[in-house]
């Protein structure tokens, strides 16, 4: 039965790798959502649901139209609506008359994931093979994160427009094809070299450095955030994002007592402001202000979908942190109706502000 899953930025390669490793090759790869997808989702969605719901619903409808019958989706049990996406989408799609099956993986409980995979996705594999598939997934997720990071860095200072993107696409294709743990580990070293050698960039440039953080889906899905990374890169800004799926799936780092996710440090830094977890990436985003200030970055762009519950909390506390640490923060609400020109203007104004601030500090 053809399998499909929502489009999720460069993570779609990671999901593809996982499913291939689990022995599933009958995939309907999701296409990049566009305005039509968002509208398709929005028509059938509840009125004030958060935007990722609408986009994922739109991609599912498109996938079903293209012949998929199994839909893969995440689930959770947290202070977030994400865990209800599939039950509600199931009701909506049933009412639309599609024939399908939802396979929901609760990312908070590894035991449940393995049970569901054994039952629904690949009954022939044993436990070790499943764990091995996941290991390859999280190792390759590290690589896609690395490529994203390099892309956001080199695209800001490239001389020939579009050259970095070509290299990045090549790198993604390479990552999907890579076989064997040793080759994957070697790629961690070869990928930066590949970018360094193949891209002609301005070596003297000292671009502004901006961190983009916020809700995970909005930050990682270019079609929802109107490719904000590219827009910033085109203004000549070096972008980085601390948001990664790795903190949920990278058991390698989780088990290693000597390594820590960036998010863990951010959470620790945010303790005086928000003491306990209140869902989403609230503490992480607040802590990022402190962390990135320490590392010498110039500003933060905070993205969140309309009506996201936890991010409204962080947005309300940002002004205080921004003042205390002298770090400019811009919060942007995004939904499927966000206009490109408006976003562009706000970004340019913010970057102007940052560059003046830098000039004032230098003089």
């Amino acid at each position, binding site marked *: 039965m053809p399998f499909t899953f929502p489009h999720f930025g460069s993570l779609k390669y990671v999901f593809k790798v996982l499913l291939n490793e689990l022995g599933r090759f009958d995939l309907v790869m999701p296409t990049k959502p566009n305005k039509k997808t968002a509208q398709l989702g929005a028509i059938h*969605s*509840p*009125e*004030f*649901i*958060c935007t990722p719901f609408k986009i994922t619903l739109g991609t599912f409808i498109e996938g079903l139209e293209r012949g998929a019958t199994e839909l893969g989706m995440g*689930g959770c*049990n*947290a*202070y*977030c*609506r994400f*865990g*209800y996406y*599939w*039950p*509600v989408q199931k*009701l*909506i799609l049933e*009412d639309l008359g599609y024939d399908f099956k939802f396979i*929901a993986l609760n990312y908070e409980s590894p035991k449940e994931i393995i049970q569901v995979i054994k039952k629904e996705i690949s009954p022939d594999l044993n436990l070790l093979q499943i764990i091995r598939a996941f290991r390859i997934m999280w190792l390759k997720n590290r690589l896609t994160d690395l490529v994203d990071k390099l892309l956001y860095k080199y695209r800001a200072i490239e001389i020939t427009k579009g050259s970095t993107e070509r290299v990045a696409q090549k790198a993604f294709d390479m990552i999907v094809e890579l076989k064997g743990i040793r080759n994957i580990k070697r790629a961690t070293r070869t990928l930066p070299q590949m970018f360094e050698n193949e891209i002609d960039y301005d070596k003297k440039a000292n671009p502004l450095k901006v961190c983009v953080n916020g809700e995970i889906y909005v930050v990682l899905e270019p079609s929802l955030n109107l490719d904000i990374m590219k827009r910033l890169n085109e203004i000549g800004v070096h972008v980085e994002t601390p948001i990664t799926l790795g903190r949920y799936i990278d058991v390698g780092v989780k088990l290693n007592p000597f390594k820590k996710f960036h998010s863990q440090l951010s959470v620790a830094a945010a303790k005086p*402001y*928000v*003491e*306990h*977890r*209140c*869902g*989403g990436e*609230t503490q992480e985003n607040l802590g990022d202000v402190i962390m990135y200030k320490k590392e010498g970055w110039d500003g933060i762009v905070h993205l969140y979908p*309309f*009506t*996201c*519950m*936890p991010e*409204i*909390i962080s*947005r*309300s*506390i940002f*002004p*205080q942190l921004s003042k205390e640490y002298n770090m400019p923060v811009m919060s942007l*609400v995004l939904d499927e109706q966000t206009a490109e020109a408006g976003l562009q203007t706000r970004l340019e104004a913010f970057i102007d502000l940052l560059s003046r601030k830098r000039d004032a500090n230098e003089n």
Partner: protein
Amino acid sequence: MAPLKVGLPRALIHYKFFTLWETFFAELGAEVIISPETNKKIREMAISAAPDEDCYSTKLYFGHVLALKDQVDYLFIPRFGSNHKINVGCPKFLGLAEVLLSMFPDLPPIIRPYYSKAKSGHKNIRLLFIAFSVGYKFTKNPFKILHAFRKSVKAYKKYKKNLIIDENTLHQWERSEVVLNDHPILTDDEKPLKIALVGHTYVINDGYASLDIRKKLSELGADVITSEQMPRDIIEQYMETLDFNMYFDYEREILGTIMYFLESNKVDGIIHLMIFGCGPDSIVGEMAARFYKRKPETLLLQLVLDDLTAEAGLRTRIEAFIDMIKRREKKVAIHLPTLRIS
């Protein structure tokens, strides 16, 4: 020495736990000041002060806090996660104290104990610990705190027992043998309409936010049951029939009540009050609407409230809904004999 004044904002979680807190602070010898019932002034303060994307109820909380801030020595804004091992509450409840602290640095000191069984894995014993750490601000006598704690828990349990009816009472209500809320005002000896009023505790009990919907309903001759009164067994039983875990704790009673009445057809209509911008409501509202599509015998009216909802508009919709129910019954009664003739 004058007793210390502690302020309880009358919004959100207050409607669930006010007995517990009032008794506790009163027993400690503190003067409990509860903000007035929501009124126009509070609403206006709330809308101008609160973050613009919060839901209406959360905005009102800001108004209640601002109404209290000059009268009290302490504000009591607990960070309450949930009282269930897995199911969680609303993230806004957890963030409120910190957001308020960040937005209004001149507030009186906020007492903000943190308690959550889900995620943090707190045990019941932590409540005692919280009671002592809060109590020491008011009295140095540990026995007094222990006494206050015991008494408040007792009062809370009693309140809960009175509020939540058992299945027998529910069936009696369904047969119109008992009245649970206000008596319906009936003109002649017509039968009262059975209406289930479903929504968050802090919406259906807040007269201003819900635009006095309970009063309006009883004026229209409706006998109301609210979702918070429903027996927990029935709700849990319906939650188990779902193919997923309904992990928002406060939403369970809402969806469970709707499912029960859609299935049993024991009421004439269900009115579901939603708040604009409420995350869980967007999910539960959609689910209820889709379940209703599958079982359309009992009528369901979903009303979305926000700070702009006009009273006249709401009244019109409720009247239309009640009229529809009445006509439907009449039509069935008229319709049957004609069928027999033909």
